[in-house]
């Protein structure tokens, strides 16, 4: 099995196909907390002792260590002026505090002193390596890498593994995030640490894309997949004229049902994939990837392996000239703040416990009062509280941007603000009426490295829902 996984994508795909076609007896129910009826399934693989899989409400199944801490990789990433992250077999996240910029993003040169050096953490301060104990044994894709100091670190597919001190509860993925798709969209993103996930339990020809509206099921060409209200697992109402717009997703002759996936024989020899009891289609008139156009048709819906966590009930959806955006109760567009520095270790600066230097500079030229005018927090009303791990209410000191501890609430002025992944969200002071999205792309690198990006719920022109 290791040979097949190591011999390139082609062989891995071949293995996956064989797995789905011929060996239902191998497809034992997974261990851990996977629940096919609600959450995204995954393929069982051997793990080191103590490791397990937890379902993350945003990122789906993730591997966690024996303490429930999500495991992350830091894959090598190309920037405008070079690389950061780690190639296989070569941990780069070290114990020394990096002091200067790396000049990876033009036009600024390398060698500039980073902010707050007296308190700047090292890479491993924020991302402790997942060390293996002396008795650890390699298993499957899990191998051991020797770090420069001689200690052994767990790796998966030869990418070293870390946890994040920002993760609090088991299976949290607060510290890192999935990178947005590939070269076109994610080119100027920071080199994120990515939660490690078990192999997906989907047949060949399918893919899952993380979006703001859920984990979207697509073809492997990123075409959105849809289901129809009037269909069932054993019958379809989409015939004849309906098929001019809707193309069934056909299953090969040897494909077998398993887990969430089953087969509908539309007509003798014509077999269609069914996911969670609904036959799958693609919408022929649409040409964009990850589209929602088909969901405009009555009774048709995009298909998700896992829905997005619910957003606060007071939030609204607003139409814009691009699509739909998440907005506060007053209809003002909600923005996420993204930030990472231009250092070798690409430390984040968008969490309230990270340095606030970048955010304060961008939102108000260093002036917290101006920040409150330009990037107002999205305030939570007194009767609003955290609703899930994704949408939480934080107590923030507006002059510093830092969280206020419980014991200091009495003595410190603070705001109760909504946060996404423990990072406050904002509106934009220039937005005046519902539907305004003037804050999107504000900041460095179109908002990807020290700036704002709108929280799209639907974007028919650019792939704004990708996360």
């Amino acid at each position, binding site marked *: 099995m290791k040979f097949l996984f190591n011999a390139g994508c082609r062989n891995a795909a071949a293995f996956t196909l064989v797995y789905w076609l011929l060996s239902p007896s191998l497809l034992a129910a997974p261990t851990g907390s996977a629940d096919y009826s609600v959450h995204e399934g995954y393929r069982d693989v051997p793990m080191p002792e103590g490791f397990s899989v937890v379902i993350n409400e945003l990122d789906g199944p993730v591997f966690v260590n024996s303490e429930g801490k999500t495991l992350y990789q830091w894959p090598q990433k190309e920037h*405008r002026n070079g690389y950061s992250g780690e190639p296989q077999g070569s941990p780069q996240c070290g114990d020394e505090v990096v002091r*200067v*910029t790396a000049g990876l*993003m*033009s*036009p*600024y*040169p390398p*060698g*500039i*002193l*980073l*902010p707050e050096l007296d308190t700047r953490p090292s890479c491993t301060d924020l991302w402790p390596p997942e060390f293996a104990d002396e008795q650890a044994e390699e298993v499957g894709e899990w191998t051991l890498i020797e770090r420069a100091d001689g200690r052994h670190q767990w790796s998966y597919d030869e990418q070293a593994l870390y946890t994040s001190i920002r993760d609090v509860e088991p299976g949290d993925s607060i510290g890192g995030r999935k990178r947005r798709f590939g070269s076109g*969209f994610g080119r*100027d993103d920071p080199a994120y640490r990515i939660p490690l996930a078990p192999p997906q339990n989907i047949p060949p020809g399918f893919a899952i894309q993380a979006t703001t509206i859920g984990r979207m099921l697509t073809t492997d060409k990123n075409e959105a997949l849809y289901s129809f209200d009037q269909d069932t697992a054993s019958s379809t109402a989409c015939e004849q004229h309906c098929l001019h717009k809707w193309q069934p997703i056909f299953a090969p002759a040897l494909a077998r049902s398993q887990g969430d996936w089953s087969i509908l024989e539309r007509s003798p020899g014509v077999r269609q994939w069914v996911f969670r009891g609904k036959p799958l289609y693609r919408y022929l008139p649409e040409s964009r990837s990850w589209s929602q156009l088909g969901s405009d048709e009555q009774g048709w819906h995009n298909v998700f392996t896992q829905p997005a966590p619910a957003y606060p009930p007071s939030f609204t959806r607003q*139409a*814009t*000239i*691009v*699509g739909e955006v998440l907005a506060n109760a007053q209809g003002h567009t909600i923005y996420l703040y993204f930030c990472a*520095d*231009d250092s070798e270790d690409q430390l984040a600066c968008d969490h309230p416990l990270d340095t606030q*230097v*970048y955010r304060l*500079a*961008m939102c*108000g*030229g*260093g002036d917290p009062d*101006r920040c409150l005018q330009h990037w107002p927090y999205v305030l939570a009303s007194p009767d609003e509280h955290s609703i899930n791990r994704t949408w939480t209410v934080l107590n923030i000191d507006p002059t510093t941007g830092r969280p206020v501890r419980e014991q200091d609430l009495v003595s410190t002025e603070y705001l109760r603000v909504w946060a996404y992944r423990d990072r406050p969200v904002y509106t934009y002071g220039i937005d005046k009426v519902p*539907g305004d*999205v*003037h804050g*999107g*792309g*504000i*900041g*460095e*690198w*179109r*908002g990807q490295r*020290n700036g704002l990006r709108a929280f799209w719920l639907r*974007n*028919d*022109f*650019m792939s*704004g829902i990708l996360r």
Partner: protein
Amino acid sequence: MSSSNYFPIKPRGVVALCLAMLLTVAGPVKSEEAMALTNGTIGYVFTDLFWSIYQTPGAEECPDGFNDGPREQFTALFPHHESLTVEQTQLWQEVQTWHPNTEPDGFAFHSVEGDLSWGLNLDGKVSDEDFTHPEGTAGIDNQIYRAVGCIIGFRGPDGVEYIFQDKAIFDSIYNRLMIEITGIDDLENDTRVTVNLYRGSDRLLTDATGSTAVAGGTQRIDRRWGQSLVRQMQGRIVDSVLTTEPIEDLIIPWQNLGVPSIQLIRDARFQLDLSTTSAHGLLAGFADVDTWYYQLIRNDSTHHLSNGQISGISLYKALRLFADAYPDPESGDNTAISTALDVKMTQVFIVEPE
């Protein structure tokens, strides 16, 4: 006796006679081009759009040369950046870009010093700040040109904005503007027509290269997301040139690097040469300064501004300096700047969505 004696009109002549009879019955055959104008209506879709920049081969309008961009300014400001912090250098420059002001930045800004410019006389006056059209018309209002004309990124043939802002008009459906002219009695002369502006929903019909749009395509109106962009204006056609009355505001959806942004043109009007296959000319008016500026920097960020040697910091000051319309009621500072855009369009059939 030969057969020819019984057919005094030769067979070819018979055919010609039949054809003539058919034509008489059926009326004149309409050409494909003429079909573009149907029921007094013709549609055009934008294929090219960019700020009208009058250039001479030797750049005589820029006697002091071209302006520096962020990279050059950074080097000049921080020659010993290794001893400085990110806050003192990179973030300082970013703050000046994203929170611009009108205070001097220590850099000499090279604005256009020539007298000539493309554009229109928007206010009907001739003043000292105005340009003269190369064809002689005085009072040309195009202060945007004065601000950007000596910035290499805005100049042809290969300035980064010159290429990519225009390319986005062609490529991006988000930017798909089109006009539909109705009430046309005569495409060459008509005292009153109505011009509707919509956003389309479809790719352009192109030739094989993909670089040239061809007439005859179809565009569905974007009623779903683009309804707020719909505008209507009145106009007239004289010698195949359409001119429209100014409208209060015209929103141009314009992204060139993935940020959904707009331009806001006040008192917007068209002057277009029309044919049954294409239209070209000018879109002119007063661009809202802040909208103009933030559309540029949101899409480009400092990196792409740097590609065109565009210092946002310095440019904003120039925009505010040369702004010539719509004074702010409180400060009295002008908030809009006269502009002209070169526009090219291709004939298209505009239809309502299903």
